[in-house]
């Protein structure tokens, strides 16, 4: 019987397989950041262990880093201490580090792909659940806890039980204004936050094949929000073209050998998935969340659901609590929800294409009065590219704040946070209670919906902007 993409990559990394034991898997690339690594390095020290493969390990700083005044000492002493701990650990153990201020610094899941380190058929881990992002290249990539970070540092392997596989097939054409973000939010709403639990997802079908690498990364990034540790997309010409010429992409004969291998990384015709979900791309629309988990979402044209409409008692209770926290009323049109803050950035939507998409809608328009818009590039390289294209000017002229690279408002670990009761439209990945700051209320959206919302001051799609005149090209 044939094998799925996930099974092929898994099998190629089995160091040891024994009856009654989890497989021991080799890890090709280990990404580190300041938050989940300090206790792992401590563990190495306590046991007199070294980092086994420095050449497969790389670190950057992203969660704690401020996006303003990056040339000044970090104001929060605890954040500063955590970054200094990473620097000290990397120096002591010899790990390559791209600290704040370095041209290769950025959100760890933006940095790996742009350096060409994330490649098809590799295993990638990081102490961060959004490591699933790298699956866009046909890599088997998943988030791990700090004990596993220590395990990989010491052994370059992980003992793991093989998950089941689930195909998510998306055929047809995505309608205009419907993005990868809308697609993944719709998938999560359909299968639920636990729907992918125990599975590796493979996104496939004609709608997926047409997507750019940036869009594929957005989709794989949020696999974890459906409960799946990993999501994958089979590598193809789009993948190869993205990688060719990048700093760590193979060259010469190695490139040819790599591409020959990468081309084998497709699910066989006769392979069998443990579960399958089918989505018709043509039926999708711009999608937003109304609740406090990423599965609580609906098309922008819909209304806030009535908790009483849920048959399942725990879902009903969850919806009641979500509406209470979010300050929403059942039946209220989603388009009527006004926001204080718009955030464009994060490992989900902080890449160059995301910034281009938001800028295109903001060009010649203004951010609505009373709305604060933050645009935070995913990495220094993304920022430099955006400046080269003049996108920073577009954002600034529209009244948005153009910031330095980092995780920023995706999570409340750095100065960029919502105040209690504030409401955001955010291109990030989690609308959990307090995620963007204590008492903050988050609606997850695409960069396009974020831009339209910034201009109109309420949740809006790009089509809603047709009545708003632009000064561009007049």
């Amino acid at each position: 019987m044939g094998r799925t993409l996930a099974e092929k990559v898994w099998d190629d990394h089995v160091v040891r397989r024994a009856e009654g034991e989890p497989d021991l898997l080799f890890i090709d690339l280990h990404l580190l950041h300041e938050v989940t690594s300090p206790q792992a390095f401590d563990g190495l020290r306590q046991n007199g262990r070294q980092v086994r493969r420095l050449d497969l390990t790389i670190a950057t700083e992203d969660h704690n880093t401020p996006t303003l005044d990056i040339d000044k000492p970090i104001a929060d002493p605890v954040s500063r201490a955590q970054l200094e701990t990473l620097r000290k650990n990397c120096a002591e153990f010899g790990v390559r580090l791209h600290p704040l201020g370095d041209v290769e610094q950025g959100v760890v899941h933006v940095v790996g792909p742009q350096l060409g380190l994330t490649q098809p058929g590799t295993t990638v881990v990081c102490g961060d659940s959004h490591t699933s992002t790298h699956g866009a290249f046909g890599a088997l990539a998943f988030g791990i806890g700090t004990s596993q970070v220590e395990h990989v540092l010491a052994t370059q392997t992980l003992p793991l039980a093989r998950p089941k596989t689930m195909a998510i097939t998306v055929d047809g054409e995505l309608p205009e204004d419907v993005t990868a973000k809308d697609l993944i939010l719709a998938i999560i709403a359909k299968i639920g936050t636990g729907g992918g639990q125990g599975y590796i997802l493979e996104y496939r079908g004609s709608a997926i094949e047409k997507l750019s690498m940036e869009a594929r990364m957005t989709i794989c990034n949020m696999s974890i929000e459906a409960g799946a540790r990993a999501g994958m997309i089979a590598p193809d010409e789009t993948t190869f073209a993205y990688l060719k010429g990048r700093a760590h992409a193979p060259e010469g004969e190695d490139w040819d050998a790599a591409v020959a291998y990468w081309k084998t990384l497709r699910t066989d015709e006769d392979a069998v998935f443990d579960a399958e979900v089918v989505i018709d791309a043509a039926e999708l629309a711009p999608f937003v969340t109304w609740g406090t988990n990423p599965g609580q979402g609906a098309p922008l044209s819909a209304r806030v659901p009535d908790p009483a409409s849920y048959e399942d008692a725990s879902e009903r209770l969850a919806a009641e609590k979500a509406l209470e926290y979010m300050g929403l009323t059942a039946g209220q049109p989603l388009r009527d929800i006004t926001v204080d803050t718009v955030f464009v950035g994060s490992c989900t939507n902080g890449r160059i294409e995301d910034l281009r998409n938001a800028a295109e809608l903001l060009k010649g328009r203004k951010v609505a009065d009373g709305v604060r818009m933050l645009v935070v590039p995913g990495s220094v390289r993304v920022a430099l590219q955006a400046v080269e294209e003049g996108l920073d000017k577009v954002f600034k002229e529209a009244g948005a704040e153009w910031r330095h690279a980092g995780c920023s408002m995706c999570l409340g670990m750095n100065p960029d946070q919502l105040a209690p009761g504030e409401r955001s439209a955010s291109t990030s990945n989690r609308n959990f209670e307090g995620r963007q700051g204590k008492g903050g209320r988050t609606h997850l959206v695409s960069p396009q919906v974020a831009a339209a919302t910034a201009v109109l001051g309420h949740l809006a799609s790009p089509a809603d902007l047709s009545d708003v005149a632009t000064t561009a090209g007049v």
Partner: protein
Amino acid sequence: MEAFTTHTGRAVPLRRSNVDTDQIIPAHWLKKVTRDGFEDGLFEAWRKDPEFVLNRPEREGATVLVAGPDFGTGSSREHAVWALQNYGFKAVISSRFADIFRGNSLKNGLLTVVLPQETVDALWELTEADPTAEVTVDLERRKVLAAGIDADFELDENARWRLLNGLDDISLTLQNEADIAAYEAARPSFKPRTITA
């Protein structure tokens, strides 16, 4: 890791689904660089409410958390496990756990027990009606026992063996040094490297 064989204690019924790790331990606590001192951050936002179940005097000293489905979703932060353990929890019972949280728990000796929602409901009813009711989580017999409740649970044999003996995963893996070295020697040259020799 501390071994887990069997534990008996009072329970905290937490009637919430999708308890994500941001709720278990908010991000600002993650700036600490140790594995201890997280107990005050556990469910920090909810604990501001004096009526929150963890704040009730009758729950003081309880060691078994009984939660709704999809416990531990979201961020991979192992700090969530440390916070539960620092607070005093020895076991968490739910009908479904997020994968990363469950893996992190087993690495630290916090037992996560999957039981059908009906049994979770029964445990909620029992421990809400009688806060002094004790719940036993027996890993040797793979059973959860309480007044009127005798439920079997599954845990794969390998994970159970590691927990019962408090074994260190890294030491176990390093016994396979020859296998790792052999795999490394056979890796193709086109695989990426972060440092070029």
